[in-house]
């Protein structure tokens, strides 16, 4: 169990200084007759790692898609620091300080590693970025710092499509680091990583959380879930079955039965 987790787990409720950054209220979404999000309410608190757990098809990614504006909910409310996000375009939501990663990464494949990271730092859609030459060299410095941290420094000029699997995962992390966001929505960022890559990923995530980053992460690997979560939200068939401290949620035999099937330990 991580030190970070242990320190939080010692309290029953999150400390009062962890303000609610993002609040989901009674969210509903159906695809035809299928309820993919069924009356979900969830708070993401500043500086807290919330893990979304649940079987495949539970509606975890769909929840992300509604937060980021890729999907419009049928009913309910999503509040960012008290203000509604509904009706905003996804790029506007991103600019408020929400960044996400994708399960299938969606890197800018034909661009180099450096360009992948740099373009995230260039939010202006017009023909040029503000800040002139200084702004540009500052951005390049930041790119190189991020590439060092993600172990991609010597791959700066490699096209994303030519990277190895773990490197692609870290490029996805580098890109989200570059977004300079207040909240990260990570969709299975560690899946398929070997032990050492996974440790590096965890270290990176922890150091950002210590700086005050808020994270919501979808993860299946229970070691990872236990290693990084401050809170766990358990989703099944679009419903939020539990939302609490890791120990409470993971020790609930009913949830374990859903997650592992009936032969659960």
């Amino acid at each position: 169990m991580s030190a970070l987790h242990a320190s939080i787990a010692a309290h029953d409720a999150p400390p009062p200084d962890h303000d609610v950054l993002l609040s989901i209220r009674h969210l509903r979404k159906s695809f035809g007759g299928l309820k993919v999000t069924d009356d979900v309410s969830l708070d993401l608190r500043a500086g807290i790692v919330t893990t979304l757990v649940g079987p495949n098809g539970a509606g975890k990614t769909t929840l992300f898609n509604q937060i980021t504006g890729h999907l419009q909910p049928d009913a309910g409310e999503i509040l960012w620091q008290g203000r509604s996000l509904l009706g905003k375009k996804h790029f506007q939501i991103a600019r408020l300080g929400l960044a996400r990663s994708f399960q299938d990464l969606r890197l800018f494949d034909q661009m180099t590693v450096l360009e992948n990271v740099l373009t995230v730092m260039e939010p202006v859609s017009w023909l040029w970025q503000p800040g002139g030459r200084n702004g540009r060299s500052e951005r390049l410095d930041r790119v190189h710092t991020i590439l060092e941290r993600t172990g991609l420094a010597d791959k700066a000029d490699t096209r994303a499509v030519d990277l190895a699997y773990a490197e692609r995962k870290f490029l996805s992390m580098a890109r989200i680091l570059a977004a300079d966001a207040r909240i990260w929505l990570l969709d299975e960022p560690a899946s398929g990583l070997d032990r050492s890559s996974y440790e590096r990923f965890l270290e990176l995530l922890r150091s950002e959380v210590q700086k005050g980053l808020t994270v919501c992460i979808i993860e299946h690997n229970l070691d990872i879930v236990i290693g990084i979560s401050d809170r766990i939200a358990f989703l099944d068939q679009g419903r939020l079955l539990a939302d609490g401290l890791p120990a409470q949620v993971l020790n609930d035999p009913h949830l374990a039965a859903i997650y592992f099937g009936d032969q659960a330990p």
Partner: protein
Amino acid sequence: MLAYLLNLATLICINAVLAITLNFIMGYAGIFSIAHAIFFGVGAYTAAYFALHASASVFLAIPVAMLIAALISLVLALPALRVRGEYFVAASLGLQVLGVTVFSEWKSITGGLGGVIGIPPADVFGYDVVDPVAFLALAATCLVIVLIATTALLRSSFGRNLKAIRDSESAAHAFGKNVAVIKTLSVMLSSALAAVAGALYAFYMGFINVESFTLETSVLLMAMVIIGGTGTVAGPIVGTLLLMLLPGLFSYMSFLPQTEIGSIQQIAYGLAMVLLMIYRPGGIVGSGTRAAGKGKTA
């Protein structure tokens, strides 16, 4: 012989401008338009009308042609924001057909099927560019300017925005890119620069009609880009050179029956396209395996 070569070189310059500007949206924004000849046409008709009724100065006629083409290109940008890939190809085909109809019916501006005649020569600082060598210099200057402008744009943050959208539109959205603005701007820029070629063409020929701006031209331009190498700087120029020089080459092959040259050309183009797509899908300049400009994730 010299006159023939000068003519060929001038037309190569004009077509290269078109291929470069088409590659700008095809290769970097992933917008596969088969309506590019329409903006060539808009540039040509606007410059012709302006030259006949106001001024033949290239410093006035070309900017006016660019402006009008940029505005009309919003009609193309609109479907580009809503649909991708083959759906957009179909939408741009519709625009191409529509454009040709307007060109051939709006007689007061375009002269209908008869076209516009008696376009005055281009005026550069009060000097009429009638000499073929001088006109070639003018066309080459425009080509260089367009090449520098597009290359600089593509190396800038704007170019990265375009490529990001091409590679993954949803990820571009997720990282705060205003995809609608970026796509619209790219279509407007491409169309405005294509209008430069149109204006040059109108001044050069002195006569224009709808024949030059048909679907056939759009398809030929697309072939130039794909054969040369989509999403590369040199690709469209190589493609233009190849497709413009081939006809000349065929007519020098004395063993070919002169009356059949046209169909032999078509067979050669078709065969070259098929073989290229099998063995070098990235085009002559592009790297062998990559399919640049191919939209992957929606």
